[in-house]
């Protein structure tokens, strides 16, 4: 058994329960995890970005000797002009390069992937030999056209046209219902894995998540008990503080 991994499991349990304590009420434990999370995530992102800058911008200059890369590095450094008062508008220059490139690439890529291929995929035979396939194809084609019609807003949605857009609305609602149903799966999957971790379930992928092995994981419930004791003590002290404050307020009134 690895002692560092065991301590890591207990720290992980404490952190998990500190976040989950928000469900009971807002408290300093939860707030602490919020700030720790932002700090760690930002620190990691900084290191990642710095490495990329070195690989993509500095290595071509200093390792490969390609001095033309000095120009984009200087232009990119203008992003930091936003922190100055006098030259803050200079950051718009590198931003414009990024925007121009992004717009140009978007025009051909979005058109092909999200428009052409989707329209082609909708061009399917409506009437086939099989009743069920015919029904499916009609649902797909009619549903696509009618949902699209719902977003045509320059024309008032009434009369026969309103009838079509109403059916389109129902298709969109069915879509949103399917998304909601699917979202339930996603959210439950996350909390189930968290509970697997807290109870020390051997089925939890301990090593695949860098949490040691199931041997250390089996001691996770000890961390749960320890946290509940600490949190319980915190709630007890809060209640005492509140009741003594209420008593003092009553005494002040009288």
């Amino acid at each position, binding site marked *: 058994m690895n002692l560092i991994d065991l301590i890591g499991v207990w720290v992980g349990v404490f952190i998990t329960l500190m976040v989950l304590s928000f469900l009971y009420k807002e408290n300093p434990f939860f707030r602490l995890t919020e700030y720790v999370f932002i*700090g760690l995530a930002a620190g990691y992102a900084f290191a990642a970005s710095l490495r990329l800058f070195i690989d993509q911008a500095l290595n071509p200059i200093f390792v490969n000797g390609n001095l033309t890369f000095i120009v984009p590095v200087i232009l990119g450094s203008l992003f930091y002009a936003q922190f100055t008062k006098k030259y803050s508008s200079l950051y718009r220059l590198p931003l414009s390069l990024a925007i121009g490139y992004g717009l140009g690439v978007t025009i051909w890529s979005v058109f092909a992937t999200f428009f052409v291929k989707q329209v082609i995929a909708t061009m399917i035979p409506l009437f086939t030999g099989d009743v069920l396939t015919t029904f499916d194809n009609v649902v797909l084609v009619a549903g696509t056209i009618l949902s699209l019609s719902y977003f045509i807003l320059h024309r008032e949605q009434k009369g026969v046209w309103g009838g079509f857009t109403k059916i389109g609305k129902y298709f969109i609602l069915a879509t949103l219902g399917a998304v909601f149903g699917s979202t339930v799966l996603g959210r439950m999957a996350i909390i189930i894995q968290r509970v697997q971790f807290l109870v020390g379930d051997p089925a939890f992928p301990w090593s695949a998540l860098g949490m040691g092995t199931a041997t250390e994981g089996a001691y996770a419930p000890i961390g749960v008990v320890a946290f509940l004791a600490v949190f319980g003590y915190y709630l007890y002290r809060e209640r005492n503080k509140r009741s003594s404050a209420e008593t003092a307020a009553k005494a002040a009134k009288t």
Partner: protein
Amino acid sequence: MSSDKKKMSRGDLGLQVIIFSLGFFYAIVYYVAVPGTVDLQAVSDQLLAYLTALLTAAFAIGVINLTRVHVNNIKRKRATWRYSVILIICLYAMAIFSMIASPFALDPQAAVIPASVIAFSTPIWEFLYYKILVNINSTIFSLLAFFIASAAYRAFKARSLESTILLAAGLLVILGQAPIVDLVWPGFGAIRDWILAFPNTAGQRGILIGAALAILVFSVRRLFRYPWGE
């Protein structure tokens, strides 16, 4: 409407020329090949490499902003200043250990940083990342499971035809994706698969095509600085 038209300054015009030139070039390079004269693809690839270098130069902006805000909190002793201290410590500790020992380490082959320092830092980085960061992030997300359960109870009422359709589709999908229900009667799974494959696909496709057209129109308008409000 004409009052919404903004006059472009020289600087704005210059930036718009840059946006248009680069955007137009990348829009046409996909469609146009000019054999024998200029290898547009090679020019495009080289420009891409330069753009990559330019974009990565903004690596420190997030850290600078966070540091400014929280150091300010600490200086002025605001209500959450103690938490700001913890944030700054975590930020720089993680940054330093990540630069030494993460997959983004600056010197993974120990050419400059001594191997002993890397060996010392690696378990610390792994502890911070796997045992703290991953746990916090996934647990924060897991709170949504409780909120969705609470919302399902409080808010999902079949008050109208529209809400009934939404509810029915949602409930059928939920039932179909619970394996135990699917085993009791495979029809639920088949219904869920059908809803996802047909009505959901139709609705999503309509939304996708509409969004693609909107993005296309916006991109072309932005390239030409089409006056807003006209």
